[in-house]
């Protein structure tokens, strides 16, 4: 993988997805635009997991893609029931909620929040290993010391 090249491709893809969102939204295809948005979030998740030109696939899949998957299902179920019970009371509820909104409560809000928040804690050593952070801080302070020395000379 060429350093920076794939990041550029991903950034171009992100620009195209932004365009797709406003065009689809502008044409009133807002649900399709929502899926384009999920893809865009996926692209930024990948960009955030790039290190040394390589993507850490593990970091992308968990918790990022799991979260986006739940959101995608939430939108499908929410829309399905919203259309099904348009203009009338639903035949059944989940936890007392309209089934369309129950999908949002479970798959958009509570479950993804738990997956993302506790999942992030679970992968924190992969996200930023202690030694990598220590090496970065050491490198910065060594340069600081070097600059001070140069200034003294």
């Amino acid at each position: 993988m060429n350093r920076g090249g794939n990041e550029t491709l991903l950034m171009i893809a992100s620009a195209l997805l932004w365009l797709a969102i406003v065009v689809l939204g502008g044409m009133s295809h807002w649900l399709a635009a929502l899926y384009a948005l999920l893809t865009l979030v996926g692209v930024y998740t990948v960009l955030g997991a790039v290190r040394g030109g390589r993507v850490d696939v593990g970091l992308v899949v968990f918790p990022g893609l799991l979260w986006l998957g739940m959101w995608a299902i939430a939108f499908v179920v929410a829309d399905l029931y919203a259309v099904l019970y348009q203009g009338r009371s639903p035949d059944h509820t989940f936890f007392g909620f309209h089934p369309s909104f129950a999908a949002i409560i479970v798959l958009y809000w509570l479950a993804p929040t738990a997956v993302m928040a506790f999942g992030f804690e679970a992968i924190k050593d992969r996200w930023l290993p202690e030694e990598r952070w220590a090496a970065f801080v050491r490198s910065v302070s060594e340069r600081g010391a070097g600059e001070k020395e140069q200034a003294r000379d």
Partner: protein
Amino acid sequence: MTETARVSILVACFLVLAISFLIGWWARKKVTSPEAFFGGAKIFGPITIGLATMAAVGSAFAVVGVPGLIYSTGNTILLFMFAAPAFVFGYLVIGKKVRAMAEIGTVASLGDLSDLRFNRHRGIKLMLSLMLFLGCAMYLAAQVEACAVLFQNLFDWNRLLISTIIFAILIGYTVLSGEIGGILTQAFQGMVMVIAGLIVIVAFFAVTGGFGPVLDAISGSRGAAAHLNPNAMTAWGVLPGAYSLAWVLLPTLGLMCQPQVLTRMFALRTPRDMPKLSIYAALSNVIAGMMVLAIGYCAVYLVARGTLAPLAAPDKAVFKVADYLGVFTQVFIYPAVLAAALSTSSLFLSLAGNIMSRDLPSALGFEIAPAKQMRTSQIAMVALGVLAIAFASVSGKMVAILGTYGFGTLTAATFPIFIVGLLWKRATSRGVMLGMVTALVGTIGCVTLELMNKLGATRFSWPGGIPWYINVLAVSVIVSVIASLVTRRATDEPMDPHVEMAMEL
């Protein structure tokens, strides 16, 4: 409302103000340098930052406006409130990069961060300062207005007097202790919101018996008589679908680049605390979300059952519900509204002070000596606070409209620099600068157009009903990317090796 209830609420609200002031007074001892005053102290743990972030993000709009929107338009706005995973997404994607920047140089403001990434590009810093200032003004005036409405609901007091007293105290502690006091008071105010949230949730179940009875009530004959629409209870509510799109997009991509979130990333002691910060920020946000859901649903239930008369002003839903629930709940809900307004105000007040004393002068080519920066910032905070009070008292309605644009404006201001810039090493200064100019011109043009629409001077609507800030944000990001690609070969921009390392962490 009884006189006892009024006095109890007043005492509870002033207790929040007094404790906030005392925290600010105490925190001034921690201000050992101008950097610490402006936000460069990397001394806070994840609980403090988590609560402070949630409180500053959850402005008065969240506690007052959202229940009103749930009552009048259904669940659509909850897509915005329920985007708690977006906090974690932000920390996961850019958190360590932002925090690492604070190790390389002095990072006490978003302008400092932009300086590091874009080699002290003055144009970008200028655009950023102007956009942030615009967002600050919108948010601040809206919080003043919210406080005035809060107390006007209780007592027939003069709006100007109420705003002046509350904001004099707020300005006092923010001027004394800067961002250190700001973060600590916001954490306290976040705690107030969380406690109020838990009490409201319990009260909701006690009154309604659960969510099912709310659905039954709105579907019944009384619900129809009160002009409540059962479709409001679906995921998308009764607003056009474009709002669902906007209210998912805005927090998902906008939260991570809000100043309330970004500035707290570099205040954290170590980036290794960021996962814990995610847990605290997300969970406190979930409680805030449950609170506004409970208030909104309670309003629907009470009106649909005929217990309350249909609300002529949906923004009063929170107060009507609080008043119905009784004095014990009132003494928590009213201070929670105040806490939400105060926390957001103090953040934007210090942000504006920072811009006026550091970022804007440096973007214009002159530096204020560090020793004088604090004094300049304090004067700027007082001046902006006074202007916000004056603006809100002269035109409360316009302020309320502008307040809803703050989030979108701030997202457009920061996205090209901090998201495109930190995720893509080939983002060039010229590219991002052009994206920022697009964002600034687009924001000013669209806000003017929106205000003219509201005043009846024009009848313009965006294709598909997509809110203007989504279009502005999209165009500014697209312009940043395309212009960076075009100018890549024309510009030779060596990046500081440590900045590159920070972006590679």
